[in-house]
Every structure is written in structure tokens, then in C-alpha cells.
């Protein structure tokens, strides 16, 4: 393939960020268009390189073409939007209805989250899957933390076997979501800083017992996860990438302010700053990671 054509399609693919099947179709279609135009120009007497050069120029910048096609498909349906907000709503309901201390309710939510995640993962990883995927990682991480605190051989088992395994799972899940689109990774990681924020706020408040504290903050916790549900649902409905990212950053900031307000008396500003930076890193980090992957991929052998 002529280098300019190769570079054109590499860029087109990089910015399309569609489902693999659809992406293949779009690229094939534009490739046939380019071939038809090049063929016509070659028949008019141009060399292959000149013809490809002009044909790609007439087609327009790959970033622009890719962005316009992306925006055709980037808006999910209302049903997908609801599906994306549902895991956050389930967590919100656990706290709003005070089911958070009921083992049976927790088990139902856990089984539901894991089942939906497995279903989505095996059915083409649709856009609504990523918030569920984020929550599926929480029990995996929590089990690791619990194992470390267990006495004797269990902690060694955790350090030597479980933690590396969990890291492997998290890295491969992150890689898979990055392959699709870094924005989905940011969506997936959305509840992480919020959960950490609430844990810090609750741990800092020593006036009440742990259970009483959760009871006390339950309405606020429920509200914060409801806002996350709105963020995920709005994310799915937005067409433009900047609007999707804007939704995540604005609504997460609102939730963060709520948590700071709830736990302001007990936690130092430095701790809040660190959590805010972690939140920002988890939102922007995937974009940087994706750039890094792309650069490594496009390096000539």
C-alpha cells in the first residue's frame, strides 16, 4: 500500500473508535472510494503516488471524516443510557433504602453486577457495559484487601498469588477498554474516587461508630451515586467527545463537593486535594495511556 494511504487509514482508524465490526465496514467503504478516485486519476495520466495523494486530499482530513462518522454512532439509545446508569442507581438504592447492612441485598446486587458484566463482556462489550465493569472490579479489589489483613498464611497467599492475579485482571480489563475508547475507561473508573472519598469521610469522623456513620450519611451517599447514574446516562446520550468528557468531569466534581461538604470537619484539606487529584488522574489518565499505546503501536519495527 502507498505510504500516504496507509497513514490515512491508520489515522482514520485511530479516530473512529467504533465497534470493531462497524469500524471494519466504514474503513473498507472509504478504502474502495479512495481506490475508485485513484483509479480515475491514474487513467487521466497521473502516477500511483500522485493519484493517491490527490485522492486522499479530496477525501478530506481523516480526523474530520472519522469525527463526523463517530458522532453519527456515538449517541446511545435511551435504553442503553438507562442500562449505563443502573449500577450506580442500584448502589444509591442500597443506601437510600438502608439495605447496605443486609447481607442478602448486598449478595443480590453483587451477583447482578457480575452477571450483567459477564453478559456484556461476552456480547460485544456495548457502551453501557463499562459502569458495570467498574463495579465488578470493586469486590475483586476488596477481597484482596481483606486477604492481606487475614492472619498467617492467608496474607502470604494474598501477596504472592491473589494480588498479582488481580493486577493482571485489572490491567487486561483496562487494556481492553482502552482499545475500545479511553472515554469508556474514564466512565468505568468514575465511582472509584467517589468510593474512596466516602470511605475517607467516614473514617475521619470518629464521633460515631462505623455503622452509625453510614446510617447518618446514607441519604448523602445515595444522592451522590444517583448523580453518578445521571453522569453515566448523560454520557451515553451525548454525541460529541468533549461533551461526554465534560459531563463526567462536571458531575464528578459536583459529587466530590458533596462528599467534602459532608466530611469537611473531620478530614484535612490535603487529603481532599489528594483525592481530587486522584479523581482527575482517573479521568484524564486513560487518554494519556491510550496515546502511549498508540505511539508504541505505530512505532516501526
Amino acid at each position: 500500500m502507498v505510504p500516504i494511504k496507509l497513514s490515512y487509514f491508520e489515522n482514520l482508524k485511530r479516530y473512529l473508535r467504533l465497534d470493531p465490526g462497524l469500524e471494519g465496514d466504514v474503513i473498507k467503504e472509504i478504502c474502495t472510494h479512495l481506490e475508485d478516485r485513484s483509479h480515475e486519476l491514474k487513467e487521466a495520466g497521473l502516477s500511483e503516488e500522485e493519484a493517491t495523494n490527490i485522492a486522499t486530499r479530496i477525501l478530506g482530513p481523516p480526523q474530520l471524516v472519522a469525527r463526523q462518522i463517530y458522532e453519527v454512532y456515538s449517541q446511545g439509545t435511551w435504553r442503553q443510557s438507562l442500562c449505563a446508569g443502573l449500577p450506580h442507581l442500584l448502589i444509591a438504592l442500597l443506601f437510600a433504602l438502608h439495605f447496605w447492612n443486609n447481607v442478602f441485598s448486598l449478595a443480590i446486587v453483587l451477583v447482578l453486577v457480575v452477571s450483567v458484566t459477564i453478559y456484556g463482556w461476552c456480547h460485544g462489550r456495548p457502551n453501557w457495559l463499562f459502569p458495570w465493569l467498574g463495579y465488578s472490579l470493586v469486590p475483586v479489589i476488596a477481597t484482596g484487601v481483606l486477604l492481606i489483613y487475614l492472619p498467617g498464611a492467608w496474607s502470604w497467599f494474598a501477596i504472592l498469588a491473589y494480588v498479582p492475579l488481580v493486577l493482571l485482571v485489572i490491567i487486561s480489563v483496562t487494556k481492553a477498554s482502552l482499545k475500545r475508547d479511553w472515554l469508556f475507561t474514564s466512565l468505568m473508573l468514575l465511582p472509584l474516587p467517589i468510593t474512596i472519598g466516602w470511605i475517607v469521610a467516614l473514617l475521619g469522623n470518629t464521633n460515631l461508630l462505623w455503622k452509625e456513620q453510614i446510617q447518618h450519611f446514607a441519604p448523602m451517599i445515595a444522592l451522590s451515586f444517583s448523580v453518578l447514574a445521571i453522569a453515566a446516562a448523560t454520557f451515553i446520550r451525548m454525541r460529541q467527545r468533549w461533551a461526554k468528557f465534560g459531563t463526567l468531569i462536571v458531575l464528578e466534581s459536583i459529587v466530590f463537593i458533596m462528599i467534602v461538604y459532608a466530611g469537611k470537619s473531620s478530614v484535612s484539606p490535603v487529603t481532599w486535594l489528594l483525592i481530587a487529584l486522584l479523581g482527575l488522574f482517573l479521568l484524564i489518565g486513560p487518554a494519556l495511556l491510550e496515546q502511549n499505546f498508540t505511539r508504541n503501536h505505530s512505532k516501526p519495527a
Partner: protein
Amino acid sequence: MNYERELLKGSTDSLLLSLINNQPMYGYQIIKELERRSNGYFQFKEGTLYPALHRLEKAGLIYGKWQKLPNGQERRYYYITLKGQKILAERLAIWQDFSTAVSLIMQPASN
């Protein structure tokens, strides 16, 4: 933005539906046909054609199907749907009324 470009932008979907309604076509063929039938007036920016086609397809007005040409190459042909035909008929009626009204005001000499 210039007036001509704005007019074209507003009529792109109707032009595409109209062409595909006459016969199923693939992207490059649509570009050539638009140029030919408008005596070179419509010179579409080629890269913007595909987002427009995919938008119409997502709206259920057309559908695409890969087909083999006699020379063995494949092209994605677009077909109009019933919904597309209905929308086209509505737009055509609106366009005819609009164009008659504009002509009555802009070229009143014949009255």
C-alpha cells in the same frame, strides 16, 4: 458562512435520498452522479458524504449492503427504505411549495 454552502447543507439529505430512490448506488457513484446531474454545480466534499450516508442509515431512511461488481470488487450499495421514501415524498412536497413561493416573490415580473 456562505449562502450557497448553507443551502447545500440544508438539502444534502434530500438530494441523497432522491438519488438513491432512483436506483441503489455506492458512495463514489453518488458523488459522480451528483456532479453529472447538476452539470458540475454540486461538488460534494467527498469525506462528508459518508457521515451523511451513515446518518441516513442510522435514521432508517436507507440501508447499505455489500455487493460484488462484475470485476469481483465489492462496493457498499445504498437502498432506500419505505420510511425513506415517505420522508422524501414529504420533503419534495415542501420543497415544491417553498420554491414556488420564493419564485413568486423573487421573480414577480410574469404576474
